[in-house]
């Protein structure tokens, strides 16, 4: 089945903050052409590796084509312009001014190509006093309010998701959404446009629960509170016999089911007192509620707490690792995993579709070798008008 974006050509100059965006577009059917500098994209240098192959690259580069081009070289500069002239979308993560200095910025390339969609992802956006500031995943989280509130009170603030580059992923999701929205505008107006994503703003946009606007309303300082949320109880991680589980008793029915379970297992009748059905009462007695909950959770393995808790209608989930996910029965049963034949790694099992379309297609493919498509893609590009 063809994907909803079949026929769309995307030129990809993305680093880690947008490489996932172009993978998403590729898997929806777009033809994504990575333009890599001689020697290869910096994505190919990100560990973990197997042999010489970056596994970040194996995932981010999936389903894309690779063209090796030296943009600063005059002849290749011209070929790049010809390539962009055939494209619907350009996705790039260069610092403001970098492509402009090569006369390959948006303003240079949209001349004669008014329907071009240009997606720019930068640490702080293309305007404002910090537009030339350097960024990273960590710096974006730092300047969003989310880092300040993540971690234990006695330790320094700590990045959400560790090395998983979650700020970059947010920027990528926004970049893909922005490209699709601009495509829809183009269908209506016939014109392309600049789509601008700031990684800092991508993090700010996920900050409402710890964020500035709600703070203005309640003026409660936001502090690090470890692996539980102070606003509600029980909420957060609780110790199991062999690890941890996440427990979020947000609705009244969740607490009553949990209280019943606690009473059954521990004989602690106090937990069954209907006074604790009121969330404000539980918050007031946070310490006791936590102890009662731990008296239950520490008796069982996380897998048992997951299955039995869910059977009782309680939102409880195990704290998993990659090892747990690789054998997760649900992912297995729904056919989540895909296998692709990587040119250097051979057959590898990779995460499948983040969404399942009942009619339009989704499919993935391995990441390309450096320059694998240079000749096929560049050989017969029409000359510029």
């Amino acid at each position, binding site marked *: 089945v063809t994907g909803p974006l079949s026929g769309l050509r995307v030129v990809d100059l993305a680093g880690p903050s947008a490489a996932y965006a172009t993978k998403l577009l590729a898997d929806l059917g777009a033809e994504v052409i990575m333009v890599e500098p001689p020697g290869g994209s910096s994505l190919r240098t990100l560990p973990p590796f197997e042999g010489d192959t970056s596994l970040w690259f194996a995932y981010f580069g999936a389903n894309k084509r690779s063209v090796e081009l030296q943009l600063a070289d005059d002849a290749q500069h011209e070929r790049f312009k010809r390539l962009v002239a055939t494209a619907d979308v350009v996705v790039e993560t260069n610092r403001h001014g970098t492509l402009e200095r090569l006369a390959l910025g948006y303003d240079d390339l949209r001349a004669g190509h008014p329907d071009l969609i240009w997606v720019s992802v930068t640490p702080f956006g293309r305007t404002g006093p910090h537009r030339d500031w350097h960024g990273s995943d960590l710096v974006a989280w730092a300047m969003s309010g989310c880092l300040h509130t993540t971690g234990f009170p006695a330790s320094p603030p700590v990045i959400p998701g560790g*090395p998983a580059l979650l700020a970059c992923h947010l920027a990528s999701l926004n970049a893909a959404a922005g490209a699709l929205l601009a495509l829809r505008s183009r*269908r209506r107006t016939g014109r392309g446009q600049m789509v601008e994503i700031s990684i800092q703003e991508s993090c700010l946009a996920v*900050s409402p629960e710890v964020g500035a606007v709600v703070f203005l309303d309640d003026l409660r300082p936001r502090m690090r509170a470890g692996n539980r949320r102070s606003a509600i109880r029980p909420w957060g991680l609780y110790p199991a016999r062999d690890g941890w589980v996440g427990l979020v008793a947000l609705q009244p029915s969740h607490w009553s089911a949990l209280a019943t379970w606690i009473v059954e297992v521990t004989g602690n009748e106090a937990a069954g007192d209907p006074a604790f059905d009121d969330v404000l009462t539980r918050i007031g007695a946070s310490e006791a509620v936590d102890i009662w909950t731990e008296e239950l959770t520490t008796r069982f393995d996380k897998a048992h707490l997951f299955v039995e808790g869910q059977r009782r209608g309680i939102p409880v*989930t195990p704290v998993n690792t*990659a090892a747990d996910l690789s054998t997760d029965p649900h992912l297995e049963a729904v056919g989540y995993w895909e296998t692709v034949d990587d040119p250097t*790694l051979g057959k590898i099992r990779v995460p499948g579709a983040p969404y399942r379309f009942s009619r339009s297609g989704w499919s993935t493919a391995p990441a390309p070798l450096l320059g694998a498509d240079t000749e096929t893609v560049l050989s017969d590009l029409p000359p510029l008008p």
Partner: protein
Amino acid sequence: MAAGAGDGRSGNGDDGDERPLAGIRVFELSIAIAGPTCGRYLAHFGADVIKVESRRNPDPVRVIGSSWVPLDDPSIGEARPDTSPMINEFSAGKRSIGVDLKSEGGREAARRLLATCDVFLTNYSGPAVKELGLDYEGARAIRPDIVYLAMHAFGAIEGSPYYDYVAWGPNQAPLTGLDDLTGYPDEPPAAIAAFGYPDYSSGIYGVIAATAALEWRDRTGDGQLVDLSQFEATVSLLGPFLVDHERTNATPARMGNRLPWTAPEGVYPCRGDDRWVAISADSEDAWCALAHVAGHPEWETDARFAGVSARVANHDALDEAIASWTRAHTHDEVATWLQAAGVAAGPVMDPPAILADVHVADRGFWLVGEHARLGPDLVTGNPVCLHATPGWIDRAGPSLGQDNAEVLGSVCGYSDDEQAALVEAGAVFPLASPDLQLRRPYRAWAPAALPHLPWGSP
């Protein structure tokens, strides 16, 4: 400075709506954060998003209301949930109708509304929408070309192992391994406890899925079921680690703020109480620049720090050296000096610092929308800037049932008498205390103290 034309932020509804989703109507049956976040993006970019809500089983982000609204003031009563700043954050730009979908009258109203909609968006569980007759089969019987976006926690495949399970965003972070990766190696997992990362990422995945399905509908005329399992969507963010485990049996461990491929990378203590600066010196040039800015050019020739592998291996010593410098300065000083030298750095900002920040405000990130009870209200912005057809909102989060008359009348075709009968029968929940007007306490001081934020007319 106000946002100017062509910056991807400005726009207004006066002269023809040019936004990409203008003309698209969305039936939103969502609570909490993931589904509403998707709907909020769609509304920002022009869709008419109608949040269908119950007063008996309200959206939990409404329930607590605003902390300054007294719990027991009878004059406020059922209007309290309308004041929640969270309803602004997750539903700005939407319309709200109060409908009891468990009543026959409410179901008929939902059917009439659905017949006019392009997209059905839900993050209710699969069994819950089925019970309401609003699963995909039910919905497409009413609107055959509906784009049905099912954002269930565990997908729409009946009979799959977790199909009946319940999970909020803060349950997905542990389940998908994100919590285990968050924290320091010698401590328990710190978890992403303060906010629900997977809620937001799933919401944006929803925007991608909905717009891709609309593209498909434009090309073929066909609607479809889009099964967006929040679990699977979140797992997809961990690709490299899962491939690594598959190939080498490696399981990534939490490593604080460090990364395996660069050093220094971390937060460092600064002058003041709980003040930190984040530093990512991700190249040799950046590392040398840092050494010079810190007044320690000798670090450059220190064998422990010579080359990125040495710095990664000696990260503890590196952190100690850098902290001995940062401690004497404020986080803003350190960040500004490093940035001037080309090193990625930034203060670890708390909400007051973010509100005071001129860069974010100058970019027009913050929004203001009209709230039915509170007047102009400040709302967190949207990170997607379309320069030619920017998104915008004209209203903040709707009060429950604020748009009953318009939607039930003009869209669903009920006469005034029929609407009154629906209310009488308990099938429609009317707006509580329609004349109640309140004022956020900060409106008295914040516009003067934070003049760079958009405040609207008082």
